[in-house]
């Protein structure tokens, strides 16, 4: 009798362990961990891990040529006054899609992967999400040049093409390369160069940088999905899960 019971309990135990192993990832998957942020208000953060904000010293990019540094045109107050507009303004008036603000640098290895994935996802789920791209050139002059070129290309409606080329190239974006790229993509190079140096573009970049500071991001890639801030390279699955969570979010949210 005892031996039969022992066998039964052993089997039951095995079943539980098996079930646990099988279901654990699902449970893990389903439970997205969010932490509400006090600042900026109404937002929350996803994960965090080792590089949770605060533990890194505040930082705003590797030193570039100080003389070329343009004057500060955007203040923190300006951006804080309209965080949603700063994040998603480039997408136009809100619709029922979840908006994603993506921050990246062309010379950060993981940004290339994240940007490519996110762009593909935005295309695949165009009815559910829309991506606002923010340039965050933290890695010196080449990063800065690439970011400015991409934003200038956006003014000619060729941002996506430019971005695609830039994340594919192992080249450092120097003037000659940007000229070649313009010719290939069919962008007016003279206008591009003019726009690259324009105040409007500087303002746009400074807004992105300010957002990065306000959200206490420490590196790239980083993104804000609806009202959820996430740092580091995160998987398509996680992005989709956050988007779903945002879709089901009944709170007023921040935006």
């Amino acid at each position, binding site marked *: 009798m005892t031996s039969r019971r022992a066998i039964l309990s052993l089997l039951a135990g095995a079943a539980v362990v098996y079930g646990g192993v099988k279901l654990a990832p699902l449970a893990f998957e389903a439970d997205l961990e969010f932490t509400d942020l006090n600042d900026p208000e109404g937002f929350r953060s996803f994960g965090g891990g080792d590089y949770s904000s605060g533990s890194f010293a505040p930082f705003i990019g590797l030193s570039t040529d100080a003389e070329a540094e343009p004057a500060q045109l955007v203040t923190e107050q300006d951006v804080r006054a309209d965080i949603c507009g700063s994040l998603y303004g480039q997408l136009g008036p809100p619709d029922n899609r979840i908006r994603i603000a993506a921050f990246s640098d062309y010379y950060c290895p993981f940004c290339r*992967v994240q940007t490519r994935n996110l762009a593909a996802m935005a295309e695949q789920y165009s009815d559910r999400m829309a991506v606002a791209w923010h340039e965050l050139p*933290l890695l010196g002059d080449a990063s800065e040049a690439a970011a400015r070129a991409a934003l200038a290309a956006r003014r000619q409606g060729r941002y996506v093409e430019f971005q695609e080329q830039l994340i594919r190239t192992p*080249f450092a974006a120097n003037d000659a390369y940007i000229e070649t790229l313009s010719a290939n993509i069919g962008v007016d190079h003279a206008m591009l160069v003019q726009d690259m140096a324009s105040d409007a573009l500087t303002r746009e970049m400074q807004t992105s940088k300010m957002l990065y500071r306000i959200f206490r991001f420490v590196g790239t890639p980083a993104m804000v999905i609806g009202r959820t801030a996430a740092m580091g390279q995160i998987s398509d699955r996680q992005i989709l899960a956050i988007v779903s969570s945002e879709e089901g979010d009944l709170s007023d949210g921040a935006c």
Partner: protein
Amino acid sequence: MLLENATNWICLALRAAAVVVFSQVATTANAATTEIQTSPAADVALITAENAIAPLSSSISAGLVISLSDGWKTYWRSPGEVGFPPELDLSGSENVAEVEMLWPAPHRFTAFGIENFGYDGEVVLPIRIRLERPGEPVALRATASLLVCSDICVPLDMEFALDLPAGSDTEALQIDRASADRIAEFAAQVPSEIASEEFAEISAFMDAEARTLTIEARGTHVYSTPDVFPEMGEYTAFGVPDIRLGESGTVLWAQLPILALDEEAADPFITLTDGDQAVTLAATPLDRAPEPPFAVDRMRTEVTTLLWIALLAFGGGMILNVMPCVLPVLSIKLASVISGGGKARSETRSGFLASALGVMAFMWALAAITFGLQQIGVTVGWGLQFQNPMFLALMIVILAVFAANMIGLFEISLPSRWQTRLAASGSRGGFAGDFATGAFAAVLATPCSAPFLGTAIAFALTGGAMDIASVFTALGLGLSTPYFAIAIYPRMAQAMPKPGRWMIVLKVLLGLLLLLTAAWLVWVLSGVAGKTAVIATTTLTALLIGVIAMKRLPEVPRWAGMAILAVAAVVSASQLADQSAGSRSTTTTEWAVFDRAAIAQHVSRGEVVFVDVTADWCLTCQANKVLVLDRDPVADALTAESVIAMRADWTRPDEGISRYLASFDRYGIPFNAVYGPGAPDGIVLSELLSTQAVMEALSQASAREVAGEN
């Protein structure tokens, strides 16, 4: 010059360490270390070997200590495709004339298809600082900028201050042992910059289109885990190197695809690393690409490998029995047992044994030929005989006649002629006939390069006499297993259903199968010899069958006609062969010609590359083409703009393609692989393709799925 400095510097550091050990002077802890700047990614500090500046001392040794947390990395002076090397700015310092940062040998990191070179764990970047005024105090004011990445890239900007006073001439007072040791440890990892006997010479060749850089390094050093890091100006980026060793590991040959070329690139500097040894040398330019070393490691075969390969060959041989080109032969043989149901057991037994011997005989003959050809330096590929129009035509004639017989157009009743003996062996007794059946089955098996069969064969071809003999024997044993089985247990054959009407149906079916095989051979022939040859061969074969079927013709003209037609059918194929008929393009997909170097270039642009290695004589390849590659959705996916379809034609032996296959430890085809941002090293598909597998690999390679798996 750099090396001289480094060596001086190692000496200095080591001497310093020794002095401290012997004098046992307690130095103030961290006297020559700045405060550690901490972050979750890395702790960074600036250290110096000296606690104080000795009188007349004109230089100091410093180090930027970067202790990276688990999973974090930072970069070498050439970071790879993207990335950012650490920078140190000492311009705010006092009494500093010149600063030189040295770079310990890097490691290679590959993530998401991006090649990066750098460091993980702890690294000390040694810095040699020359003083403006020897012997006077130094105030170091440094700004370090470095990029650290895990799954996020964080740029760190840190400031350090370190003051070194002028010290007395007691050396011990001026050296911080711990710091000196740490700097010395990493200074020893800085690649040596002069040629030695061990690393005597590195030469390099860049092809005219700047697609690949080929490197050859010679010396007495025996490489074990080498890596190659060429540098050719700031903007030049390389893909993954294909590294080969030769001459007992003393010659290193490497080929790297050039992903991007710096317009002003000078001759390359090559850094070679192997374990804890490293060297950086200017490469001597070559006029042409150095030849890759011969794959010596294949010549010595271990017993276990040989057993394994023999097992594969045996399994492959067994599977060959159910291949469409062999199954009919086996079935016919079985049918003979069915028709002669009352045959004595011993007769059945010896009959099947004879067939098995026939298989073995053919295999051994093939082994002998292979060995002979290998001896005179000819490359032999399995199924290579299918490039020969004569051989193809002969097979077509035999198969067609055989098929016609099965379908019932005539009965072969004269086993005295050789080709009819082959065909009739199924329905007639006699050891010769049985033997021929076996041999015939083996001949027919050749084009059916089933999975893993290719591996065994190619292994045999690259191996020695022993390898060849054992592989072909195992192959033969596998193919003849059914015959042996029936010879041992004749009941197995007698357990077959009793003869009846179904037999005729079966016979016709088998005949149709043979006809199908013949039709396929016709198709192969059209690829090898062109249309004219095909028309001639098929017409003559049809006539031949007609003559055979017309029994009312007088004996002599009928036999003469048969002989003439058979010979004409076979000879015409080679006589009328169109030499220009090479690879055919029957597909709508635009296949680019295989270019191994271009793969990495396409991938670096975010494109997906589909590689198909095929040959006209490869049955499985043809099946893949017809069933998967030329059908939607695969055909459609392959024509997409971001997908490059490359076809390598192995119909004729090609050294480059063979080498490419060998890099995957594959020696036979079909071979298909998909590369892309999500799979920079390639996803190798199984020999028998399925639409689903191809589509999955394509989407995985396009990188969309990779992130999803994290």
